[in-house]
């Protein structure tokens, strides 16, 4: 039996930027959707919330990933113009080839129907597009002819082959081949062309862009067949930019995603709108990407939220919330059923730990990075953020009610938060002082050093503050005042501190990779004489197991380590690459054998570590 196993994964959302299209891929059977965030590619099942696969081999930010029609390979592009082609059948994802197509971001990739050729377009300095054979990387034509960056590309899925592309020079170009050669451009759009796509049999293709129009062309020669029009709008299809376009698997319908916050489903034979799905009314509800697979219609909001749309009813069946920026803090409700995650942009997501169902806490509580989040036994949520506030969100409804927040201004930046289990006392470690919040009153005690983290013992008697001065300062807490009882020196800046649940042991971690437990009752002498230095970089976070026997630490070195207090000389359990290519920012024990970790990669992972 292995020492650990990953039991579930709550995946990151796709990376989004306002005004930039999100290009989605899908598997041939349509049961999974592909998107990118950070340096990773996510293969996300449409009917499972916890089983996403992550490809982490890119060394730069990924932009687009597409499965080959055969299903055996995936091609993914990054911001430096590299296209990696990798095997999809094995979990190791063996690299087939890396092809540098140009020197700039790859914006779209298309495979031909024989899974032999790949066209990649984007914003290179020397060219905007390249078409090549996937196995050798040899050129299979020339995609010049458009004067500015190309945004979208698609292969005609039937012979005679064609490539169509949409560009920032407002044109749609058609190339004949193979080998592919420029045939013509069409200047029907008056703004940037964001998306061009062939229908499933290749008889037609459609283009759309910043001018809100959708144009239908003959698939073989590009003669204009028609223009989609919404009768409620004069001559256009959407009242905002259209970022994504996708054909239904049967080819009789078309779906578009637009900055006017709607997804529209069109009838291809009548060129009229069939369903308008309004996602919301705020800027964050703009729709930046869409794909219609054989199993689902998926659109992406500007927030990164993944909307699963029912094309028959024109309604949103399911929304997947989460994060696409680094997760900085985790907390669980006392019953362990709800997990709260907070990110570097001030968003908080509440997750059902058993199913992976998620919800964003709205209205948002903070505007910037949340550095601490804690849940108490009565269901309240305490948070501190770089907006210099300590906030208490009361329990309400099925979770917390963020419309009734108690807000306390802090006079310097908070870096850590500790809250007693019942929520009576909260202590925030701020840059220049320690803030104590009890009975609705905030008291700030100045400190002569810069703090980095804080812990509170379960009996609410002791406060341990980790300092950037490489010392752990232990205070006795009496009412709203602190008296220092012990100072423990480390070799480098303290990164996290934690009291065991019974208050017997204090553990401190530091930047010099050390994890050191101290016995509280024996004036903080070392709990053992072994050197716990198995991390290879700064230790970022620490958490005690409910039985007080094991410790989990997360580190900048991408790994999570499980230490055993009763066997300090044993080799710990090391989960290497727990969050590949990313720092582990927070770990938490859910129960005696389950830990949750979250990292810079915006993923939340559940690990089973048997006793």
């Amino acid at each position, binding site marked *: 039996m292995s020492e650990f196993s990953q039991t579930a994964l709550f995946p990151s959302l796709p990376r989004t930027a306002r005004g930039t299209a999100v290009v989605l891929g899908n598997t041939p059977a349509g049961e999974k959707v592909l998107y990118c965030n950070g340096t990773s590619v996510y293969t996300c099942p449409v009917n499972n919330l916890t089983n996403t696969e992550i490809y982490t081999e890119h060394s730069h930010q990924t932009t687009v990933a597409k499965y080959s029609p055969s299903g055996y390979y995936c091609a993914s592009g990054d911001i430096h113009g590299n296209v990696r082609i990798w095997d999809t059948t094995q979990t190791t994802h063996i690299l087939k080839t890396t092809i540098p197509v140009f020197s700039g971001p790859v914006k779209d990739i298309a495979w031909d129907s024989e899974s032999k050729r790949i066209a990649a377009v984007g914003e290179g300095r*020397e060219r905007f597009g390249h078409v090549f054979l996937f196995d050798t990387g040899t050129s299979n034509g020339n995609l*010049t002819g*458009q*004067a500015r960056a190309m945004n979208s590309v698609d292969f005609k899925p039937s012979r005679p082959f064609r490539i169509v592309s949409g560009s920032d*020079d*407002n044109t749609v170009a058609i190339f004949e081949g193979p080998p592919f*050669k*420029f045939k013509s451009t069409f200047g029907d759009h008056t703004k940037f062309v964001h998306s061009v796509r062939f229908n499933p049999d290749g008889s037609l293709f459609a283009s759309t862009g910043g001018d809100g129009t959708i144009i239908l062309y003959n698939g073989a020669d590009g003669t204009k067949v028609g223009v989609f029009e919404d009768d409620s709008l004069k001559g256009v299809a959407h009242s905002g930019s259209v970022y994504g376009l996708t054909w239904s698997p049967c080819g009789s319908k078309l779906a578009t995603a637009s900055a006017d916050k709607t997804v529209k489903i069109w009838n291809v034979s009548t060129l009229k709108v069939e369903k308008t799905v309004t996602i919301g009314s705020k800027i964050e509800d703009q729709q930046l990407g869409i794909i219609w697979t054989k199993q689902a219609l998926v659109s992406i909001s500007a927030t990164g939220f993944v909307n699963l749309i029912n094309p028959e009813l024109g309604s949103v069946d399911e929304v997947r919330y989460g994060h696409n920026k680094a997760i900085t803090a985790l907390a669980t409700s006392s019953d362990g059923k709800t997990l709260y995650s907070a990110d570097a942009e001030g968003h908080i997501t509440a997750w059902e730990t058993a199913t992976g169902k998620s919800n964003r806490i709205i209205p948002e509580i903070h505007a910037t990075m949340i550095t601490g989040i804690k849940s108490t036994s009565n269901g309240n949520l305490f948070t501190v953020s770089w907006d210099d506030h300590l906030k208490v969100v009361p329990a309400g409804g099925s979770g917390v009610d963020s419309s009734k927040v108690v807000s306390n201004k802090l006079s310097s930046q908070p870096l850590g938060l500790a809250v007693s289990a019942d929520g009576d006392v909260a202590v925030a470690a701020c840059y220049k002082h320690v803030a104590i919040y009890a009975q609705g009153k905030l008291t700030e005690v100045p400190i002569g050093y810069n703090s980095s983290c804080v812990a509170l013992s379960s009996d609410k008697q002791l406060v341990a503050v980790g300092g950037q001065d490489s010392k752990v300062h232990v205070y006795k807490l009496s009412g709203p005042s602190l008296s220092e009882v012990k100072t423990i020196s480390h070799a480098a800046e303290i990164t996290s501190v934690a009291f065991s649940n019974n208050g017997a042991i204090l553990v401190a971690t530091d930047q010099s990779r050390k994890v050191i437990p101290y016995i509280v009752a024996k004036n903080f002498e070392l709990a053992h004489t072994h050197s716990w230095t198995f991390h290879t970089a700064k230790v970022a976070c620490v958490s005690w197991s409910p039985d007080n026997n094991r410790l989990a630490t997360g580190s900048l070195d991408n790994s999570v380590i499980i230490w055993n207090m009763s066997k300090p000389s044993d080799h710990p359990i090391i989960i290497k690459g727990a969050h590949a290519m990313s720092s582990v920012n927070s770990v938490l024990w859910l129960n005696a054998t389950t830990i949750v970790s979250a990292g810079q990669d915006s993923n939340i992972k559940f690990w089973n570590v048997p006793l």
Partner: protein
Amino acid sequence: MSSGVMVDPDVQTSFQKLSEGRKEYRYIIFKIEDNKVIVESAVTQDQLELTGDDYDDSSKAAFEKFAADIKSRTNGLTDCRYAVFDFKFTCSRVGAGTSKMDKIIFLQICPDGASIKKKMVYASSAAAIKASLGTGKILQFQVSDEPEMSHKEFLNKLGEKYGDH
């Protein structure tokens, strides 16, 4: 493109006829009309009616016809144009002896005599046409007066680049 000038699809298709396959055209002159870069004239080898071999005289005769055509179309170099010319020449290289070369040159012709507005439009639209032709396979030159349009001038520049200097 930053000028809002678009490139006509014909520009790319006729350039393909000059650069690829049977190399039908010898030179092409482009101009901007109605906010669009269009093909003004595309001239084949046969239309030049040359008797000698291009490599022997390093395209001197062909180039002079081309320069004269430009001059007449710009009304004595008082207007701007873009042009591509298939330059065939021989040059000597160390170790390789004399070799026959074939290079496509792109000319941005903005004579001093042209109006400032014209010069501005042609200068700011040059990036668009060069991008759509594909800058990889062409050599770019700017021409602002008649002496710069001379055959000898280009031959020297090409020789510097490809010859044994």
